[in-house]
């Protein structure tokens, strides 16, 4: 097989995976960073990193957790590099506020604001479970936690959201 045909196949494989999982990557980045502009930057970096290390992905069935793990690392790297401060929910930038200003439904707006206000420790496993469809044991593996810790965080996250929307 020639080098150019290997490159072509590699690119085709990458494009196919990205077309399937791009939306998940972006939404995960958006809820991790709580900022649409940062999410776009994080996804760009994640795509670049995934492209460079694509040959390490031996089984395409594992592509989704592989890509989300890359997004997770890139997000952490982004915040480490810039030493960004904790988001102040009463003083949001335009691209932070953009994440909250999309729904015409008032109840969903309130819930989205409540999710936005959750601590990272609670928000991340909730996104992985509700939006990405992972089991608590898979989330534990991705986040390097014990399953019991994930269950506790999820339980508390839902209670915080329930309390927020009931107020």
């Amino acid at each position, binding site marked *: 097989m020639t080098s150019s045909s290997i490159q072509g196949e590699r690119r085709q494989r990458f494009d*196919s995976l990205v077309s*399937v999982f*791009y939306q998940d990557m972006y939404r995960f980045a958006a809820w991790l960073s709580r900022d649409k502009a940062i999410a*776009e930057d994080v996804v*760009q970096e994640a795509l670049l990193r995934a492209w460079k290390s694509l040959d390490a992905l031996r089984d*395409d069935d594992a592509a989704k957790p592989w890509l989300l793990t890359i997004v997770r690392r890139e997000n952490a790297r982004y915040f480490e590099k810039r030493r960004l401060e904790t988001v102040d929910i009463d003083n949001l930038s335009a691209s932070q506020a953009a994440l909250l200003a*999309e729904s015409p439904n008032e109840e969903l707006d309130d819930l989205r604001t409540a999710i936005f206000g959750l601590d990272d420790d609670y928000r991340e496993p909730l996104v992985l479970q*509700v*939006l990405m469809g992972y089991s608590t044991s898979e989330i534990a593996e991705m986040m390097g936690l014990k399953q019991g810790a994930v269950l506790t965080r*999820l339980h508390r996250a839902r209670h915080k959201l329930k309390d927020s929307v009931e107020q």
Partner: protein
Amino acid sequence: MNCEEYREAIAADPAFDGGVSHVAGCSDCQAYQREMQSLNLRIAKAMLVDVPELKMPELPDIDTSGVTSLPTPKRSMKPVWFAIAATVVLATSISVRMSGVFESDYSLADDVLAHIDHEPGSLRASNAAVSDDRLVRAVPASLATYERGESLITYAQPCVINGNSVPHLVIRGQYGPVTILLMPDEKVAEATPIEGANVKGVILPVGDGSIAIVGGRDEPLEAIKKNVLNSVTWTT
């Protein structure tokens, strides 16, 4: 299991399917379970932020001199590989059609039949229902909700068709397994019949998406269609 333990478990994972004997006899916990499942659905909707168009970064050339070949796709129940293959087939089909070489009649019905052909394991007769956990994983709340109703769901797998997430369910019909593909991103203008070698079915328009229902040639599908339409709610 007592009320407190059950509620902690259901709040941590609304798909939790343990504690059956407790919840069956506790109306408060039944109400709490419904409340958590409803909250979960609203959380999923709230998390569905708009996604901007993909902007692919400039990808550098990679030294592939040490690479002899890509991993061989396995022909088995591997939804992602199949989706990629199906996407390539569709892209090829579209490009051929655009080139005017010949008029292709490639359609969503063909995708559905091809998908069923490539997951033969899904059509094994079974009397075992999939767990709630499995069902929720196959039908993530970000796409749709599916109420079991009286159907016996024997297979549930998240699949991909044409690059879109497609929950793939199989229920037990009168004469054998019946495949249900929930396709929230595949809009069809009208009910579209599906005719395969040994199967028949239909793709029904549902909101901005569609649902394919495919059974054996003798399977009466009318009642199943009605039940399925009552069971599914898109959340996208």
